[in-house]
């Protein structure tokens, strides 16, 4: 199958596959010595967002990722990768810790969206996302965000404000799911396929819109078909960019980050 025949809906399907590698797979294979850190120091530990410290070759970095399950059972434990406010607050805590110890931050985005539950609203889902977005915009260390699967809505953007934002070739990134888009704008959720084609949610679309910086190649059929290659591609990119971004002065880094989002209109 050549690239031209792959539709946006194919990418959506691929991005959601259970067997598609998840954040932990990337963390375990790109980095060494990953030590997971838990909790938001306020309410609890959200298992749909994982984070900790790891070595990227010889550089200590903070890694954060939205974590979907790798099995049906794990998916329930991970809440299908839909974080609650405490997940975003844990992510923010780890980012501020990274800033204190001058560690670059690498985030992995893979979520159908922030969890729309009663508890989430009671604990301030909107505030948690807003604060994470705001703080990321001024965090004084390099940030690289990688969309590895499904990047959907504010729940994705909450850990998506970085100096570099990149997508795996078969990942998608959008304002909401194509099903949600279809049900709101076409009043028919079964038109999700049409929605996907019109939403400009593929890596290629987002590169054209200048919302992302780079597309990381995947083998035919998806990352799981040759995971070693994908890990290799992504690792090379991260090593190179961490090195480049670390050379910049904090002032320059933050001004570039501000302008990167400032000009999207």
């Amino acid at each position, binding site marked *: 199958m050549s690239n031209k025949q792959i539709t946006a809906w194919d990418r959506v399907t691929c991005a959601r596959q259970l067997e598609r590698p998840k954040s932990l797979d990337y963390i375990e294979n790109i980095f060494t010595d990953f030590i997971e850190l838990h909790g938001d120091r306020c309410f609890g530990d959200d298992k749909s967002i994982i984070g900790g410290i790891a070595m990227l070759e010889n550089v200590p970095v903070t890694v954060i990722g939205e974590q979907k399950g790798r099995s049906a059972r794990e998916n329930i434990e991970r809440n299908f990768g839909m974080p609650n406010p405490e997940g975003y607050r844990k992510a923010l805590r780890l980012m501020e810790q990274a800033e204190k110890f001058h560690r670059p931050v690498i985030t992995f985005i893979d979520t159908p969206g922030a969890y729309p*539950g009663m508890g989430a*609203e009671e604990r*301030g889902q*909107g505030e948690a996302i807003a604060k994470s*977005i705001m703080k990321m915009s001024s965090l004084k260390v390099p940030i690289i965000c990688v969309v590895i699967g499904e990047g959907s809505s*504010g729940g994705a*953007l909450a850990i998506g404000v970085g100096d570099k934002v990149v997508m795996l070739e078969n990942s998608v990134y*959008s*304002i909401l799911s194509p099903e949600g888009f279809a049900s709101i704008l076409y009043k028919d959720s079964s038109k999700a396929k049409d929605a996907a084609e019109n939403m400009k949610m593929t890596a290629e679309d987002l590169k054209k819109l200048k919302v992302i910086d780079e597309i990381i190649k995947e083998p035919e059929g998806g990352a799981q078909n040759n995971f070693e290659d994908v890990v290799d591609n992504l690792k090379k990119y991260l090593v190179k960019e961490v090195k480049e971004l670390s050379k910049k002065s904090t002032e320059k880094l933050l001004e570039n980050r*501000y302008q990167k989002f400032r000009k999207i209109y």
Partner: protein
Amino acid sequence: MIIDKVKKVNEAEEKPVRNSRAADMMIGKWVKCDNCKEIIYKDDLHDNLSVCPNCGKHFRLSARRRIKQIADEGTFEEIGEDILTKDPLKFDGYMKKVETLKEKTKIQEAVKCGICEIEGEKAVLAVMDGNFLMGSMGGAVGERITLAIETAMDEKLPLIIFSVSGGARMQEGIISLMQMAKTSAAIEKFNQAGGLYISVFTDPTTGGVTASFASLGDIILAEPKALIGFAGPRVIEQTIRQKLPEGFQSAEFLLEHGFIDKIVERKDMKETIAKLIRMHKR
């Protein structure tokens, strides 16, 4: 907006009609409060800042009327009115819909921004308008709000934003999502410059606006009973498969859970904001 028009029509009419309650009913001078079911004379509702004189329900306001209620008369100077809707997805029918709305609402986008005086205190004021695609935030709204924040920063003025929004502008896809990052980053810069930002939630504010600038005020106010949330009530009900309790996601609920500073009635809003501005003067 609609009430404004009604008032103008009424003013133009002959006095004798006023005496006939039946005639008034027929030409729609009366409105039923959807909260207390009381029949209210539209002029009375208008004169009462569009708050039900019987039960205190705060009806939704157009940006134009809100500005009238908050800014000192004749002081509001609009900024960013040349920032207009774009169509990044080339979404079928979108621009046509926008043109129709512009015609109908007499506003160009879902937010109006400007510099004004509030009880003599100079401030940047941004007011969203729910009549324009439910106050949704697309590129133009994000751009206007960001301009307002940057203006407040450059001119060293306090910033007041009244939010009303259904969330992100779906028709502009990912560009809308990115406005959350753009506006929040601008607020952060403004924070670091020491600026005062008062955010006011009005009914209803949900989605991407709640999850960005509206939740980031130094001081967060809300009108009574305003619906405020990230996920909309219907989405939550579909997710948890049960009905939400009465008052869930109301301003009172948010106050109880610690996410807003104060609920302020419309009649006290201007004075409260002016007081806060004065207390932050250096």
